[in-house]
Each structure stands twice: as C-alpha cells, then as structure tokens.
C-alpha cells in the first residue's frame, strides 16, 4: 500500500540508497552474472552460460583452497578470542585513567599501516630476522630456525592484524555489564570462577559473537598477509581470486570464487544473527 505521508518522510533517503546501491549492489549483480559466463583462450569474457566455474569449486585443488581459507578464518577467530578476551576483561576492570591508556594502545594499531604491521613480522621471524639473530647469538640454536612461509605464519599475521576488532567488541560488552550483577552473584555465594562462568561469560556472549564475526570476515580476504608471510605455500581464497584476476585472466572463475567467499560470509552472519538475535547487526559496528 502506498502511503504518501511516509513516502514524503522517506524521500531524502532515496539518493543515499541509489548511491550505495550503484557502487555495491550493481557490482555484486555484475559478479553474479559474470560467474556464469565463459572466457576464451585470450582471457576475454564470452557471453555463454556455464556452471563450470562453480563446478571448479568442488575440484579437490580448489576445495582445499576453500578449506584453507575457512580454517584460517576460524582459527584466527579462536586465537584472537582466547588472547583477546583477557585483554578486554582486564582492561574493563582497570582504573579509569589506566583504562583509557589501555584502550588507546588497543586502538592505535588501527591507525598504523597494515603493510607495516605485516612487514614487522618478516623482520621478526625471517631467517635473518630479530628472533633468529638473538637465538643464534645466545647460542641456543646453531643455524636459523625456519619460521616463515608456513600456514601458521599467515595465521599469526592475520590474528595480529585483526585482534583489536575482537578486543573492542568484547570490551564493549564487558563494559556494558551491570557490575551489581557480579556483586549479587558473589553475595549469593558464588566464587570468582563460578561468577565468571555463570554470569560474565553468558552476558558477554554477544560481544564474543560480534568479535568473531568481525575477525572472520576480513580474514577471508587479506591476501597480502598470506602473500608476504605465507609466501604462497598454502593457497587461500583471496590469493586465488587475486591471481585469477591479475595474472590468470580468468575473470569468470574469480567471480564464482568471490560469490563462494560471500556465501561463507553470509553463513557466518546467519550464525551470528541466530546466536545473538541481533538482526540489524547493531552489535557489529
């Protein structure tokens, strides 16, 4: 039913929707269409319907790529949660002055170039890097210990890059927690441990879910970290899409893989919505 009053009230929103729709909606529609098309030997797109791009996803080589990316994103979420939860929890319990210092230190990396932060790990972990230097000087090892170009190197770099998102998400939910609930729990005879498990943890679950989502999504696509730290030894979705577009010149395949990546995102968003009943994503940002 058309409501003139409401339309008049909502009219100013139309340009906004068109603008973002034009820059996000249309390109995504484009990618979907492209993912069903074919390419010729020169890499030009041919308008001929095919499902072969999607069939390729189930090719063992590419299935492994999807699995690697999923594993990387999940492990990144778990590692940042395990390391980040205490940081967020302790920070929320600091005195106001120390708390704002701690928050400042957590947020500062957002402003530091992500390339620099990735490069820092090369300096640290490389065969001629700082850690190997120190260990050799101290005669703990004779020859450099190889730490680069592994799945775990990429994992470290990705977790390091994204951990501030996790901490801030958890911190916000810990901070919102009504302190009198904890006091009530102690008052009723619960120990610190019991209170944490029965009160704090369940009530900060939305923060954990939000943090996990915020870490999971970008970790699927940060191809420069796996490029620099993983050295292409393990293939991830981001690298495959990137190389298909820039080198392989198979745009339809890259499009299909992008859709696959977005489906992974939709799954995690669906789980997030189920778990927290936050349909509007208000807890995410």
């Amino acid at each position, binding site marked *: 039913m058309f409501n003139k009053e409401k339309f008049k*009230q909502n009219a100013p929103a139309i340009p906004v929707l068109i603008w973002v729709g034009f820059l996000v909606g249309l390109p995504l529609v484009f990618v979907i269409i492209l993912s069903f098309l074919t390419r010729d030997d020169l890499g030009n797109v041919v308008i001929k319907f095919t499902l072969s791009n999607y069939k390729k996803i189930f090719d063992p080589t590419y299935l492994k790529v999807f699995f690697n990316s999923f594993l990387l994103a999940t492990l990144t979420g778990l590692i940042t949660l395990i390391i980040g939860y205490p940081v967020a929890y302790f920070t929320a319990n600091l005195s106001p002055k120390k708390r704002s210092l701690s928050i400042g230190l957590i947020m500062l990396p957002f402003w530091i170039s992500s390339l620099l932060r990735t490069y820092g790990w090369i300096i640290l972990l490389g065969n001629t*890097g700082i850690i190997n230097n120190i260990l050799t000087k101290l005669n703990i090892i004779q020859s450099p210990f190889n730490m680069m170009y592994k799945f775990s190197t990429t994992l470290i770099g990705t977790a390091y890059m994204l951990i501030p998102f996790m901490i801030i998400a958890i911190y916000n939910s810990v901070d919102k927690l009504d302190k009198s609930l904890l006091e009530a729990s102690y008052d009723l005879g619960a120990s610190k441990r019991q209170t944490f498990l029965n009160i704090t943890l369940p009530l900060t679950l939305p923060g954990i879910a939000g943090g996990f989502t915020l870490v999971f999504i970008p970790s699927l696509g940060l191809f420069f970290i796996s490029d620099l730290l993983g050295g292409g030894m393990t293939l991830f979705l981001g690298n495959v899409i990137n190389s298909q577009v820039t080198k392989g010149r198979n745009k339809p395949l890259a499009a299909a893989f992008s859709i696959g990546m977005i489906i992974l995102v939709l799954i995690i968003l669906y789980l997030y919505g189920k778990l927290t009943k936050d349909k509007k994503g208000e807890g995410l940002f």
Partner: protein
Amino acid sequence: MNKTSNRFRTFYLSLFFVILYIPVLGVVLYSFNKSPSTASWTGFTLDWYRDLFNDKVIIESFKISIKVALLTSILSAILGTTTAIISTYVTSKMENVIRGVMILPLLVPEVALGVSLLLFFSTLNLPFGILTLVLSHSLFCMPYVYLMVLLRLKEIDISIIESAKDLGATRWQVIKTILLPLVTPSIITSSLLALAMSLDDVVISTYMSGPTSTTLPVHIFSMMRVGVTPKINALSTLILVGTFFIVGLSQLLNKKSNQ
C-alpha cells in the same frame, strides 16, 4: 589473592602490548641500520631516508595516495554525515534499511568488493585512476563516518532539537545551527580515520589503480614481495610518523571543540 590476580592482570596486559608493538618497533629500529640486512646491527644511518627522497616512483605514488585520501575523506565526510542526518528524519523501517545498506560494504571481504568494482568499472569503461580510487575508497570509509556521526546524533537530547523548533527554527535551521555544530567533533575524527584508512588500503587499491596512478601502499606491497630492504623500513617509519601526526591532530581538535 587479590594482589596476585592484580599482578597477573598487569603482567598479562604488559606482555600483550609488548607483543603488539614489537613488530612495529622492529621496523622503525632497522630503518636506521647501516647494514642492508637485518642479520646484524652495523651502526646508525639516515641513508635509507635519503634514498627515499630520490626515488621518483615513491614520491609520485605518495602524491597520488595523498590526493586520493584527501578527496576520499572529504567525500566520505559529506556523504556519511548527510546520510546519518537523513536517517534520523525517516521512518524507523527506512532507518534500518539505510543502516543495512551502509554497513554492507564492510561485510563484503575486500577482495570480493575490489574484484566486483574492477569488473563493474571496466564494463562502464571508467578510466582507472584517481576517480575509481576515490569512489571505491569512499565506499568503505563512508560507513565509518556515518556510524560515528549517527552515534553522536543519537546522544543529542531530543528536547534540544525541540527547543530549537520551539524558538522558531525550521528543519534546515535546526540542522545548520544545532545538529551540525554538535556532530562536528565526530565528523573530524571519522574523516581523519577515513584519511588513514584510504592511505593504508592495499587490497582494493590493487584493483583500482590505473597504469599511471599507483598508490603508495600498492607500490610498497610490490616492493615487499621482492624482498626485505631497509628502504621499506624507512618509508614505513615515515608513514607511521605521519599517521601519528594525524591522530594527535584529531585528539587536539576534539579537545578544543569539547571545551
């Protein structure tokens, strides 16, 4: 009991922050190393910085990055603020739609967003360069401006707006004389964040750069792929100093406008 748990807390946080900043400090430290390798420390030098200023490609891509970042932050500030203000006037259903549309670019992984924009713009025959860079960067910067301004708008006491209306202000006058001045600190902070994010972006810029318009991060990325050289350390250090200058500036501006 309490003392030990306090001590553990301090220890844990300190350890965390040390690990968080060691990679950054490592990069800064080795930008002053005479030896081109990180294998040994052979003495202090500023040679690598001197090298930078003689590198025409770096200077060129830096100029492009700055241009793109400035245009992006201005565009994001205007669009994000406008959207935030509009969304407080529409029905709550429409407000949710706007919110969903605005955070959409943040929910699509950057590679997918970059690739889709690449395919889209090339079909439209848009020339790749500053225009495509600014359009794509504003896409992931604008939501932050929108979210931060909206947060501030929601904090404004409704009676302040009503009282302006009561004193004779039209809708437009309310926006101009009450809302905009009150959200200015948020606009400043968020557009500086937009500036920093645009300056830092690698993934989307990889697809959006034109043949003659490579941004600095894209160039640095290609340098890093080749190998470790203290020149990268020096460049990264300079960028770090630059961003800290921006952060400091935003803090200062906020403090001033809060007074």
